[in-house]
């Protein structure tokens, strides 16, 4: 019995190729079942996400299994596809489950996607001794990588960094009120990230009221006329500013004017505009925490750097676990 993997991912293939081979989650089990009907393939699991499509196969001969798969899937040339055999295929699966092969290093969503792919193949009767043992071990490895290293720690995007900081200031974001000044894409992403973590009320203001309304609708928030945003400042915890204004929009006197009404509660200001929207002197006010785009990007870059430093440790965990597995076919 030999284990093989044939696949393509975000590194080997552009999106227009990946989308051609993408398989909807609901069809993964059925596809895996179809594959084991082919000669030379005894077990199979099909994994398909927006960044990868991979076929994990077990058969008497790896070459024969790959040949049968290529005929069924019509993979065309070899240009975008990678083949992994035996222990390399097992190692690759562990790397995928641990988020080491993901576009965002250490992301955890892939773990659930691998689990789902296996569950569907198993339910369709497409797995047996080799792949059952391999996938169970890969899930164990994925968990171990997450608990014994810091591969998933720290946000790797500007929006993620802003959310982490907001949680450091306010704890749970449930009940947090946010105002978005300027309805651009970056502010939308950041506000959306805050809402997804529990922020309850979003006010949106923009020079064009229609754009403010559109973004407010999208996020279940409320549009505020641009001339009225200062009055809203008294009731919010987070300000996200991203206008195209060539000068500062939020100045110290805006915050000074509402400090007493706010009872000096902490206020988190996120300035993702260039040129900056928030006068840096606002950050000198005691209860204000001011972060601009450079600082947030730097935080995200540091987190990515820290994750990369963990790769070696993750590789050691994977190798140690695979030695313990001693799987036939590897």
């Amino acid at each position, binding site marked *: 019995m030999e284990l093989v993997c044939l696949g393509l991912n975000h590194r080997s293939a552009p999106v227009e190729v990946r989308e051609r081979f993408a398989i909807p989650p609901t069809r993964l089990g059925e596809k895996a079942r179809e594959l084991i009907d082919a000669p030379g393939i005894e077990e199979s699991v099909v994994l398909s996400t927006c960044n990868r499509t991979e076929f994990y196969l077990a058969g008497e001969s790896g070459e024969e299994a790959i040949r049968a798969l290529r005929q069924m899937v019509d993979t065309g040339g070899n240009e975008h596809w990678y083949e992994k055999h035996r222990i390399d295929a097992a190692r690759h699966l562990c790397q995928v489950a641990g988020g080491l092969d993901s576009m965002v290093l250490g992301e955890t969503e892939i773990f659930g996607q691998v689990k789902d792919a296996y569950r569907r193949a198993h339910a369709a009767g497409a797995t047996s001794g080799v792949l059952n043992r391999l996938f169970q071990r890969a899930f164990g490895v994925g968990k171990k990588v997450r608990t014994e290293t810091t591969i998933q720690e720290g946000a790797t995007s500007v929006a993620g960094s802003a959310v982490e900081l907001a949680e450091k200031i306010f*704890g749970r974001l449930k009940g947090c009120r946010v105002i978005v000044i300027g309805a651009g894409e970056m502010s939308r992403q950041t506000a959306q990230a805050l809402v997804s973590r529990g922020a309850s009320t979003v006010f949106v203001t923009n020079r064009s009221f229609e754009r403010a309304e559109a973004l407010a609708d999208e996020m279940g928030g409320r549009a505020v006329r641009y001339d009225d945003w200062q009055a809203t400042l008294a009731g919010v915890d987070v300000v996200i500013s991203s206008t195209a204004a060539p000068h500062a929009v939020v100045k110290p006197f805006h915050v000074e004017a509402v400090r007493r009404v706010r009872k000096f509660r902490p206020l988190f200001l996120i300035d993702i505009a260039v040129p900056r929207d928030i006068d840096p002197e606002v950050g000198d006010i005691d209860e204000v925490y001011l972060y601009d785009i450079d600082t947030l990007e730097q935080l995200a870059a*540091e987190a990515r750097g820290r994750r990369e430093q963990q790769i070696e440790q993750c590789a050691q965990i994977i190798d140690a676990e695979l030695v313990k597995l001693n799987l036939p076919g590897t």
Partner: protein
Amino acid sequence: MGRGVHLGYLLISTLLAAIGGAVGMRALRHGHRSRATVLWMAGAFLGQIGFLAIRGEMRGACPLMDTGEVLVFLAWSLTLIYLFVGPTYRLSLLGVFSAPVVVVFQGIALVPGVLDPNPERVLSTDAWRETHAAMSVLGYGALALAAVSSVMFLVLDRQLKEHHLGSGLFRNLPPVRELLVSGRRLLWLGWAMLTVGVVAGFLMKSEGAAAHLAAAVVVWVAYALLVGVAQFRGLTGRRFSLLTVLLFLVSLSVFAFV
């Protein structure tokens, strides 16, 4: 019970708190927090109980008769309130920050001469005096913990303001809002107990205690102002925390002399 035994309890308790603090700090340097700190502090708490029980037996009264006893009682009430508040509000690192305070209080108590080596047995007790002493020191335990959580806030606030966010300490400190809320609640709790202590002080037989009671009233008024202003007018987190720490240190020094 022998004299050495209660000092043994105190020594063990101090060592356990010191180890708890050191283990917690070491874990922080490696970027995570030690969940064992609460266990070390619980051990220190048992040692404190052992010491205070024997000392109380020797006195035949609540052991709050000399500076050493007051310090240990204060450390005990701080630890007691930490053990309630820390896990309840999930205030990580509160133990790591509290342990040094406990070690300092008990370390001073262990300095020769601070604890009366031959405590006199109290012949007659005044229930109001004991209530005054016990409630005041318990209140001070809560106020000490409020000061500890304020120090934690000041550290976090500085890191957030200066964008120094890479340390293990930063990652493990509780959020700003939780520190401020717990600090304010602890201040209320301490002030409420202080109120009972001051009222009991006026009801006790007060020969020669006029200066002490006057100081107690001044401290009570100062804390009343702080909790009142923080609650009803609002204070910035930094100002609130600085005042909480300052008031605790000043009032503690005042009581060292009167």
